[in-house]
Structure formats: structure tokens, C-alpha cells
């Protein structure tokens, strides 16, 4: 009986990993210094190749940086002492689902727009504690200091 349960659990492992990949909205391409991805309250170290999902928080602790590319070819990088929430990412052009909303809690970021920005310029925005930034198909640098 126990053998079956164990076998069942082992068989589920690749499915879980695959499921994480299936819901990926982008991938981390580079990390310097100490960085993490926070998902459902749990932290995992951020390394090049890690998949990121909607609602993830990307954080760099101390000096460092992280670069991420997304499914719509947009690119984001964050710098030292930075915290960015990937609040909403929808990229299904055939169903007209297009949106990219980020939350820059603190720190610095560079955003280079991709297909979502091209097809639906009004659907990309960055929320910060001091202001909201509405982007129209473009390239943005932002710094938020607490």
C-alpha cells in the first residue's frame, strides 16, 4: 500500500514542475547579488532560468540586480534594494486578453515594452506608493524611495 502511495507521489513530481512551467509568464535571465522570488508567501532563491508567475514578487536584497524577460517579449530589470510585484500579466492576443500591471514597491526598475504594449498601449501600468505610471508602448526608468 505504502509503495503505491510513494509511487503515486513520485509520478506527480514532473507534473507539478510542468504545471509551474505552464503558468510561467516569464523567466529570470540574470541575477547579481542576493535576490528572491516570493510566491504565496514562500521564498525561493532567484537564479537565471527560474520561471516567474503572475502575482510573484521579485526582490533584490542589498546591492544587486535581476533581469527578466516575459512571454510578450517585454523586459524588466530591477536594481539594488528593490521590490517589484508582478500584479497582473495577461497575454492571449487571440482572445483579446492583454494586460501587464506591475507594482514597484521600492527601488529601481527598467521596463522595455513588448507585444502587450504594442497591441494594447493602455493596458500597461506601474503602480508605486507615490504615483501611478500609465505607459504607452515605451521604455521607462523608475525609482521609488521609501
Amino acid at each position, binding site marked *: 500500500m505504502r509503495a503505491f502511495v510513494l509511487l503515486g507521489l513520485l509520478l506527480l513530481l514532473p507534473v507539478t514542475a510542468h504545471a509551474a512551467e505552464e503558468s510561467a509568464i516569464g*523567466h529570470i535571465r540574470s541575477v547579481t547579488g542576493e535576490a528572491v522570488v516570493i510566491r504565496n508567501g514562500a521564498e525561493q532563491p532567484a537564479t537565471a532560468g527560474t520561471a516567474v508567475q503572475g502575482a510573484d514578487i521579485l526582490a533584490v536584497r542589498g546591492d544587486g540586480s535581476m533581469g527578466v524577460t516575459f512571454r510578450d517579449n517585454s523586459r524588466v530589470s530591477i536594481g539594488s534594494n528593490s521590490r517589484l510585484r508582478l500584479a497582473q500579466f495577461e497575454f492571449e492576443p487571440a482572445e483579446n486578453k492583454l494586460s501587464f500591471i506591475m507594482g514597484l514597491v521600492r527601488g529601481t526598475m*527598467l521596463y522595455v515594452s513588448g507585444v502587450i504594449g504594442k497591441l494594447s498601449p493602455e493596458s500597461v501600468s506601474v503602480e508605486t506608493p507615490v504615483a501611478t505610471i500609465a505607459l504607452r508602448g*515605451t521604455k521607462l526608468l523608475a525609482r521609488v524611495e521609501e
Partner: protein
Amino acid sequence: MERNGTFRATLATLLLLFVAACSTEPKNLFVLLKDDDGTVGSIQVSNAKGSQVLSKAGQATGMDSAEAPPQEPFTLTQERIDANFQTVIEAQPEEPVTFLFYFKTGTTDLTDESERQINDVMATIQRRKVKPRIAIVGHTDTVGSAAVNQRLSLQRAEEVKELLFSFGIDTEAVEVSSHGESNPVVPTADNVAEPRNRRVEITVR
């Protein structure tokens, strides 16, 4: 004579300090940059106290706190942009590269020219600084049934995927999808035949 000289020196120092203080950017800072292809979009920065629109490359606005409105747009030199944002600029991922593939009418066979282009894709993949993700996306024009177009464009994308796999691409790095008619190269009205839109795009990122 000496008293005048000291006074002028003090005044000059104070002036320099004043100018330096004025050219320090606000704590919260937002800058519009040119896209890689040279076009410039626009951004609107808003809070409860006000709103500003930036529409020229190098324009910036910001505020020292949430209680202050966004400042009148000012222009930052490249030097000031680098001074404020060097780390994120250096951490920018490499620009994605997209290749367009075309098919013999009504089939899932690549044109000869497109078949040859696979070599360029492979070369680009080898040259990437970081192991790339590869997106294969089918597209259609606006002629005919959306469902039929969707199916054909997905089949074609799958064909291209199989071709890449035969070259030894890591299967885990590849994502296949279709955008149907919603992401054309050449925007057209409904039911307009446009061969340039009937394509599969491979993006290496």
C-alpha cells in the same frame, strides 16, 4: 582688497552649492526613454495631487513624497540617467530576436527560403549570452473562419517546433502558441487576404 576676494569666493561657492542642489533629481523619479528602434512612446505619471505626461526621450518627472504632485517635466542628460540608473540599465536582458517563417499555400510545408532561415535561428541561439527561451507563434490573416485559421496556424507552429527539435534544441525551452489574426504584421480590415500575415514567428529571448 582681500575682504572683497573672500566675499566673492564665498558667493561663488554658495552659488555652486545652490546649483548643485537644484540639479539633484527628486527621490521618486520617472524617466521616458527611446525604444530600441528609435520610436518614443509616452508615459503619464499621476497621483492624488496632480499628473504629468512625458512624450520626449530623456524627459523626467517625479516627487519627493506621495503628498507632492509630479513636477513639471524636465530633461535628464545621458550622464544623469546613467548616474541614477546604472545598475538596472546594465541588468537589462538581451533584446529578443524574431524570425518570420512562411509556408507554401494551404500546406504545412515551409518555403525554401524559410527552410534556409532555420540556420540563422540556430546561429542566434548559439550566440545568446544566456540560455534562451524560444517562442514559436502561429499567425493568420483575416480571411476565412477564425477557427480554421487558428488550427492551421498552430499546426504550422508545431511543424516549425519539430524542425527545431531535429536540430537538437532543448524541448523545455520552447513554447508554442497561436495569436490567430490578432497580431498582424500588416493590419488589415476583416476578410482581407494578406500573405505577409500568414506566418510563424520564432522569437529567441
